[in-house]
């Protein structure tokens, strides 16, 4: 299948800060490709360079056969960008916002009207089309942002954290929309820091951390790559903070990694049969009581942990990552 996007050795420095480091990947035509990484990993900076909004320090991006640095206008006609924040005009109605975007894409009045009606219908915003966008809910904002990116019917849709900050119901709706858009034949490149989203949505995923692409494969293959690894999930009672158990259980020989997610302790190990009795004994010895214990197949999160040595949810953003994120998103150098 022909590549829709080709990113080669893309690098970006903000002063002395290295935000993106020699990132290389390609997105095949009509696939959903995900860039997975924690906040501040370099996803948004990469996206901004792909869309031609940020000049790379080095490296190239080719979209639909056009080099972004040489033919930005050709590229822009072929892509639709859904940024991670809603940047529509709050003082204007949804229809007026879409009218404005349609004009910028050079759609004539008739086509503009037809497409606006189509996307408003598709995203269930028709009834509220004349309301000011500032009165919209988060979910409506998100839908309208996607609608605005689809107005010119782009071949490639680039979505930065499409479900970030949405409630579960709206996130599900947005995921359905993404899958439908892909079924219609659109190539989708999305970034996410949500493992389950990447697992559910994308056909191939690139894991990005500290500006570097550290793995690229299908989610299934990434999980299979943790050869012989199994996951043990336990929930310990006694009102003790689950977090306190982590250093205790980490001491057990054979534990490759241990994280806390959704109130459960997740232990990764190649030899579960050996460590389960030790875990049970250790919990008992320390006055704990196991409420629930189960064995699971490795998830994409386990693959992520295995690759990066940390959980995607584990660490707050470092000062440097925060700075990189601000630089990537603001108008500052």
């Amino acid at each position, binding site marked *: 299948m022909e590549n829709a996007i080709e990113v080669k050795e893309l690098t970006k420095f903000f002063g002395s800060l290295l935000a993106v480091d020699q990132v290389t990947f390609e997105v095949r035509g009509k696939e959903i490709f995900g860039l997975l990484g924690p906040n501040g990993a370099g996803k948004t900076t990469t996206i*901004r360079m792909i*869309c*031609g*909004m*940020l*000049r790379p320090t080095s490296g190239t991006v080719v979209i639909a056969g056009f080099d972004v640095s040489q033919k930005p*206008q050709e590229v*822009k*006609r072929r*892509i*639709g*960008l859904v*940024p991670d*924040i809603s*940047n*529509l*005009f709050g*003082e*204007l109605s949804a229809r*007026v916002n879409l009218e*404005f*975007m349609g*004009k*910028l*894409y*050079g*759609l004539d009045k008739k086509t503009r009207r037809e497409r606006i009606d189509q996307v408003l219908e598709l995203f269930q915003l028709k009834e509220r089309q004349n309301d000011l966008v500032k009165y919209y809910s988060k979910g409506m904002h998100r839908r309208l942002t996607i609608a*605005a*990116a689809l107005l*010119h019917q782009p071949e490639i849709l680039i979505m930065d954290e499409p479900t970030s900050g949405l409630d579960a119901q709206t996130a599900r709706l947005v995921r359905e929309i993404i899958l439908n858009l892909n079924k219609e034949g659109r190539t989708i490149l999305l970034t996410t820091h949500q493992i389950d989203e990447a697992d559910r949505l994308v056909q191939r995923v690139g894991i990005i951390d500290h500006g570097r692409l550290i793995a690229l494969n299908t989610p299934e293959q990434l999980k299979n790559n943790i050869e012989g690894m199994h996951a043990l999930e336990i929930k310990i009672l006694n009102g003790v903070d689950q977090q306190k158990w982590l250093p205790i259980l980490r001491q057990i020989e054979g534990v490759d990694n241990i994280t806390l997610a959704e109130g459960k302790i997740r232990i990764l190990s190649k030899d579960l049969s050996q460590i389960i009795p030790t875990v049970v004994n250790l919990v008992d010895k320390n006055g704990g009581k196991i409420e629930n214990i189960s064995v699971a197949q490795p998830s994409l999160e386990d693959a992520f942990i295995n690759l990066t040595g940390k959980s995607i949810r584990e660490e707050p953003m470092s000062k440097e990552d925060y700075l990189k994120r601000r630089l990537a*998103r*603001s*108008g*500052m*150098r």
Partner: protein
Amino acid sequence: MKKFTPLNSLMNSIYIAENDLRQSFKSVRHVVWSLLFPIFMMFTFSFRASTTGQTDIEYIRDILVPGIVGMTAMFGSTNETMSIVWDKSLGVFDRILAAPVSSTSIIVGKTMAGAVMGVISAIVLLIIGSTIFNASFANIGAALLIILLASFSFTGIGTIISGLASEPREAMMLSNLLRFPMMLLGGVFFPISAMPMPLPYIARALPLTYATEALGAIQTGNPFTVFFDAIVLLIYTVGTVLFGSQILMRIMTR
């Protein structure tokens, strides 16, 4: 879909300016408040006795009304350019730049919006001043030219401030730091000739001074002063708009 031509670039600038102005006029309160301030100032100062030896009528006609008109252009234009700092923080430039629109089109559009807002606001005050205080802008063409040049200058200044500020509050503070001294020293309420040293020298560095002086000179029929002030305002316009554009370009293209 359209090709990328100079005409399309200009059209994009017009769409951007139209969109900005639409947002400004959408907020009725915003428009009313921005006009109420100069109207209030015009009426308040019209009641005071002149301290410059001029009659009250001369003071109002030659100093106050031209000054308020120039000042309104300043507030109108600089307020409009505050949208730039919001656009920066909300990522609006990203949305526009993701479309086939050049950075230059955005800069031209933003500048057009600022200048149009300055001109419209100033014209409202010019009409009020002419109607109520009998200020006669006999050469309306020259008056409009001065208002237009002044509005472009103030738009340039506003763009520089909004481009440099990291967030809206900072932009508003920086803007007021410049606008209020300019209002007091720009010959709006007190003629420069009545100012103690070294204030006249400071006043001569401010674009509002030239706008006020030129509009006053149109009242008194002094074409040389109008011409000289127009040239100075043109230099200010070129300088501030170019510098502001550089800052915006740097933000958008990096």
